């Protein structure tokens, strides 16, 4: 009996030690998390990233960094930024909506717990968790919760804007499309059954709206836009990258170069390539969407890739 009591006492001690350690670990994670959020929210922190980035590279390349667009690294998933926004939401009432101040429906405490559980669950579990979050937010939005819809806007506004910008290559048009897409979503979210993920639904809606816009544009404006009129001042942010790529400055520069070439491609090459390689559409879907035969779509994508490869090769040789 004494042995059993000793064993039980020993087990109790171990459990209490373990829970203490767990508590300490959670506190450390929470404090680190808070610091990261501060860095993301604070514009000065972004500047700091730029300075660090410039410090990593040789002096000769520093000038080129200044001359070209700044690349900021959001080392966390985009949702981190939005989760940080969640905390702000808790303090600030929803001022934009017609209903005035609406309390944060999802609750700050909940989001805090989510953050911790998200970290302990690991990066691999991040995506399904996001989908679950989306489902909750969509369900609440369908019930008329404006705060939940605002969160969806904050989560996906840049995603929608980016997709629109790459296809339309005009920041004002991209803004218009982003607003139009979210108005459509706001007005019809009650009818969304959720058979596909919200992100997929939103992405396809954005692409459809952009293609419609391009069709209207091609009827009214001359298609051949001078490359000089293209916007060069856009800023590319990488999200959800693995750490090896984050550290590899040259990979990021090359990706930026590739994106720049894509944006400058002719519409007949650019749109199918973006749909295929950046949006994962099938050749069949692209063919239906842009109303061109599958053969033409395949040829144009092949040619677009060849143009990109040739230009990259040329740039590489030029640097030597």
């Amino acid at each position, binding site marked *: 009996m004494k042995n059993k009591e000793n064993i039980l006492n020993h087990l109790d001690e171990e459990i209490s030690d373990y829970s203490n350690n767990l508590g300490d670990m959670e506190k450390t994670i929470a404090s680190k998390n808070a610091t990261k959020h501060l860095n993301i929210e604070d514009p000065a922190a972004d500047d700091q990233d730029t300075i660090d980035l410039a410090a990593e590279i040789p002096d000769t390349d520093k000038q080129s960094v200044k001359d070209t667009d700044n690349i900021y690294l959001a080392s966390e998933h985009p949702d981190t930024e939005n989760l940080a926004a969640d905390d702000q939401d808790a303090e600030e009432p929803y001022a934009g909506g017609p209903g005035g101040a609406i309390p944060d429906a999802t609750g700050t405490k909940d989001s805090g717990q989510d953050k911790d559980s998200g970290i302990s669950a690991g990066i691999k579990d991040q995506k399904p968790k996001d989908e679950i979050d989306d489902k909750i937010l969509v369900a609440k939005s369908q019930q008329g919760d404006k705060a939940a*819809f605002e969160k969806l806007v904050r989560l996906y506004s840049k995603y929608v804007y980016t997709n629109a910008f790459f296809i339309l290559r005009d920041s004002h048009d991209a803004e218009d499309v982003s607003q139009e897409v979210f*108005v459509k979503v706001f007005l*019809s979210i009650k009818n969304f059954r959720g058979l596909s993920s919200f992100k997929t639904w939103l992405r396809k809606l954005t692409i*459809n709206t952009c293609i419609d816009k391009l069709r209207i544009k091609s009827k009214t404006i001359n298609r051949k836009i001078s490359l000089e009129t293209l916007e060069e001042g856009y800023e590319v942010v990488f999200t959800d990258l693995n750490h090896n*790529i984050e550290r590899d400055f040259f990979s990021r520069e090359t990706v930026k170069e590739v994106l720049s070439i894509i944006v400058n491609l002719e519409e007949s090459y650019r749109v199918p390539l973006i749909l295929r*390689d950046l949006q994962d559409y*099938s050749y069949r879907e692209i063919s239906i969407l842009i109303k061109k035969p599958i053969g033409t779509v395949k040829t144009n994508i092949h040619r677009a890739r060849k143009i990109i490869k040739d230009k990259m090769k040329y740039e590489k040789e030029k640097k030597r």
Partner: protein
Amino acid sequence: MDTLDKYLKIAKKAVIRPGEGDIEEKILKRLSNINDKDEKLLDDNFLDYLKKTNSRPYLISEDLKNNPGKYLMLSAAAAIFFVLIFVIARNASKKNSS
């Protein structure tokens, strides 16, 4: 993997930060000013899209059409599996009868 494919894969994770102002705020401001005229945005194209995305048979048929190879492989694997089961069951019944 092709080098370009590698860069395009990374490019999928790129997000453009809008130059002028905050896009989130602009969208939220626009949403706060929704009126009856905005109902016009829900045109036939959009309603058709909404109807299609809310239809499970349509989504399955689209998936089938977009990934014919995948389903061909799956059905071939399923056919082989059932043939194997059938052969094993027949052999077992023959052994039992003998």
